[in-house]
């Protein structure tokens, strides 16, 4: 009897571990990797994929959410980045990776409210299968991936933070992301390819 129970528990555990490791975030994209296209629902109900942006030179993909204080503190800067770089060929694509069952403030409805309230000028997409963030390897919100189109591929050129002061835009000394885009625009290689910032862990 005891053996049977032990076997059952072991089988359950192996099943569970397999399931967990399946869910486990793989390493995600590294600098130089090609980012796969995706198709996610925007707040207006339309599906958005990178391939729709025929004229874009690249993309500022930002994993963000409605309530994380670091994401909220970054909102105005994300809007400003879109204004500054969309016309230069690098539009912002914001993606909410969180599961509203875990973080109730991150429902699709609340995303719509956020866009209305903050007048987002860019798509704010819902990663409802929570798979795109995992493919990218995003760990937190906000988490930025700068992509550049090269021979039809979207190549990862920068990963990390928007700048060196998440909580206070007025005290920023180094605009990591903007510097990276400006280097790409000048045909140069990005100098600082990866940076780190405190953020809210992705909740799935």
């Amino acid at each position, binding site marked *: 009897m*005891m053996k049977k129970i032990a076997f059952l528990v*072991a089988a359950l555990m192996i099943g569970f571990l397999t399931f967990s490791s399946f869910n486990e975030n793989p390493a995600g994209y590294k600098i130089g990797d090609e980012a796969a296209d995706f198709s996610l629902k925007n707040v207006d109900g339309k599906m958005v994929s990178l391939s729709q942006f025929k004229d874009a030179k690249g993309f500022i993909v930002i994993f963000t959410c409605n309530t994380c204080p670091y994401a909220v503190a970054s909102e105005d800067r994300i809007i400003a980045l879109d204004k500054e770089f969309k016309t230069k060929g690098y539009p912002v694509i914001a993606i909410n990776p969180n599961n509203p069952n875990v973080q109730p403030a991150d429902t699709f409805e609340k995303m719509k409210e956020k866009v209305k309230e903050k007048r987002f000028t860019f798509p704010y997409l819902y990663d409802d299968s929570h798979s795109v963030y995992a493919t990218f390897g995003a760990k937190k919100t906000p988490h930025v991936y700068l992509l550049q189109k090269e021979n039809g591929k979207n190549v990862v050129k920068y990963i990390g933070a928007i700048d060196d002061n998440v909580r206070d835009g007025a005290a920023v000394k180094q605009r990591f992301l903007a510097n990276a885009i400006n280097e790409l625009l000048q045909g140069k290689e990005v100098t600082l390819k990866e940076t780190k*910032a405190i953020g809210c862990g992705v*909740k799935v």
Partner: protein
Amino acid sequence: MKNILIFLLLIVTISSCKEENNEPIVNSKVEDTSSEINPSIPIYNFDGFEESYLEKPHGIYVINFWATWCKPCVKELPAFEKLHENYKNKGVEVILVSLDFPDKLQSGVIPFIEKHQLKSDVILLDDPDANSWIPKVSEDWSGAIPATVLVKDGKKVFFEKSFTYEELEIELNKIL
């Protein structure tokens, strides 16, 4: 055989705990402990924090990076409180490093500490240039919280994950 069974059950229990989310903070002891609570929170920049805890040549520290608004952080705080209670006489110091914004110290952090009767030491890390200090805590840290680092005599073991008490105790015992 029985031991193995208990071990397996324990693992399954621990693993499934991760999935739950609405567990309220419950303090096991609610007797008169007000004298143990320190409402004044020391504020550190990273250099000061590093010197005081990460690079101390002697001492054992369980350092948890959290914030009052971080749900999974708040959820795991009881595990750290229990560890503090059980290991405070064994030379282990639990340090709860709040990454709340400094302007929320009076309005958010201190009321939170009082409400939840936190007995571990709480400090505020006020150093906005996280890109320069996150890798000094660990090269493996993405910057997401909760995150925990166990330090013994200046040697660090880092975890970017949520902890149950049992998991935390296992990791602590590995370095003791």
